[in-house]
């Protein structure tokens, strides 16, 4: 799976480096000074690299926890995000990561404890405010769990702060540690969803929607709070029918009591990012559809966005109370 691991010299002997290395016994190991010297290199080809990404093990030195972008979040007063990993094992065609990074290689920051310290400091600094921490902004939170054990490591911290929420956002169904462990009431396992017909075209290398719903069902039965993320909403000729079918399937399979929150967001890119992504995949159907520039973002336009959002909310009302439904529109 991973043929080459680049390791920062400073973390060669880190216990987590050793643990991750031990899972890739046949990989070539190459030492580097700093991860940026490979990750940020000019003239990299994300598309070709994505066919066989290398793993980079590094140490993060600062900015472990950041305020979530405006418009990103649920009901909490303050939202933060953190990224123990950059890039994702899936290859979803709409993903903004392919326009954000010049490299498709995976970076894992092995110094998890520094993340945990800064999360704890942020919790303490924000006193009595409602807080949510999001994992999975720059990666899939759980797709690499079997390799990193990140979720398993961070859960005890959030067990100590039961009023602070943590969201793992994922498409992964390899969630053995969660399925077998006791649920943590303030840790939401949030799945990105779209109709199977669209996912087959767009969620490349990711588990099918059917498998995701199976995983949700199991986690819900185990008692984990479930998040459903319809983000991005994808337009198509028969989008109403497709999304209605998806919602029916979820409602039939996942008990409403298990739902912590549902969020939805439009397909929307900053202009430069859209240009970069369409250059990478000029033959992609998704980007041949008409999208227009509005206030520095390229999107379907407000009418379509509103129509899709209203449709979703209307069809979810009988499933969960409206207070659990959030719109997620990242602002500049």
């Amino acid at each position, binding site marked *: 799976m991973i043929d*080459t691991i680049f390791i920062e010299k400073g973390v060669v002997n880190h216990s987590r480096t050793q643990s991750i290395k031990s899972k890739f016994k046949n990989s070539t190991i190459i030492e580097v000074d700093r991860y940026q010297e490979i990750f940020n*290199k000019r*003239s990299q*080809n994300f598309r070709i690299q994505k066919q066989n990404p290398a793993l980079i093990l590094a140490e993060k030195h600062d900015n472990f926890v950041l305020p979530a972008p405006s418009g990103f979040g649920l009901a909490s007063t303050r939202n933060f995000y953190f990224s123990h990993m950059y890039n994702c094992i899936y290859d979803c065609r709409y993903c903004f990561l392919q326009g954000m990074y010049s490299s498709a290689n995976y970076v894992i920051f092995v110094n998890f404890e520094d993340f945990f310290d800064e999360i704890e400091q942020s919790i303490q600094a924000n006193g009595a405010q409602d807080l949510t921490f999001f994992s999975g902004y720059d990666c899939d939170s759980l797709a690499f769990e079997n390799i990193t054990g990140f979720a398993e490591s961070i859960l005890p911290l959030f067990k100590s702060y039961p009023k602070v929420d943590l969201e793992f956002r994922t498409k992964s169904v390899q969630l053995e540690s969660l399925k077998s462990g006791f649920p943590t009431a303030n840790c939401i396992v949030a799945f990105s969803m779209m109709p199977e*017909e669209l996912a087959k075209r767009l969620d490349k290398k990711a588990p099918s929607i059917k498998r995701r719903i199976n995983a949700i069902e199991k986690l819900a039965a185990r008692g984990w709070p479930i998040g459903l993320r319809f983000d991005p909403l994808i337009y198509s000729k*028969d989008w109403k029918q497709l999304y209605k079918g998806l919602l029916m399937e979820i409602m039939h399979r996942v008990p409403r009591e298990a739902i912590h929150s549902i969020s939805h967001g439009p397909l929307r890119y900053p202009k430069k990012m859209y240009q970069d992504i369409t250059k990478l995949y*000029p033959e992609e*159907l998704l980007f*041949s559809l*008409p999208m227009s520039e509005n206030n520095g973002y390229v999107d379907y336009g407000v009418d379509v966005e509103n129509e899709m959002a209203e449709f979703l909310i209307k069809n979810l009302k009988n499933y969960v109370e409206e207070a659990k439904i959030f719109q997620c529109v990242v602002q500049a």
Partner: protein
Amino acid sequence: MMVNNRSKVDVSNFEPTVCWVVALKSEAKPIISHFKLVHQSANSIFPIYRNHKLGHLLIVSGVGQINAAAATAYLASESGAPPWAAWINLGIAGSLDGDIGKLYQGVKVTNPTKEKVFFPGYRFSKIVSLVEIQTLDYPNSVKNNGVLHDMEASGFVDFATRFSCNELVFSFKIVSDNSEQDMKLIDKMMVNSLIGDRLQQLEALLDEIITLSKLEKQRLQVPDEVEEVFKQFHFSVTRRNQLIHKLRKWKVQFPNRSISDLVKEAKTAADVIRNIDDALTDMKFDWT
């Protein structure tokens, strides 16, 4: 060298797919012979060989990273190699612990003198072992464990990545000397044999490289029809770029339609672009 009188390499109707940069004639010989490359202009600054049909070009750079960089830039300039051409630096290298005759792909290339570091090439770990290459300014008998030592890779990668993307730039090295076999034993015959023995493996690598190059070509190449439209109407630079961009989208949505549908009633470049825009307004696309 008679630079002023040199004649250009004839690149008419020729699109290079693979550009080889090789330091020594003895390293190049097995490649020239195997791929039936033909010597080009006698007055060229660097000797250049070509196989028109296969799309291969080879330049003999001479020893050292400055020569490798200069030859790479020269070949790019002379050949008009497109951005989807693959660039390959092939040669011998020293090693402390590598097996003599073993072929490696350099996935980290350093230049300690200039403090430069590169990570070239899509990795072909199923075909070849991956390694770090350290490029030195002089032959060095003192070697590091697990690292190959050469004299060209860094200069080559530094320049080749200006003409093609990083993932299409490759440095392949064959171990010529190690702790048990001194570099003084290296001669032309030996070099010829080291490279010649690896031709089958190089062929396997080339198959993969050409596949990647084709993928890049599909991504980057301006559709042929665009040139036809350019001939019919005057397009400013901005409108040219708009046309290329929009026409690509149009082709995705209407793969079986001819561009003549968009052009036949147009009187100006703006009309052509407007016609494409009109065709691209239908959002109700059937994904299934």
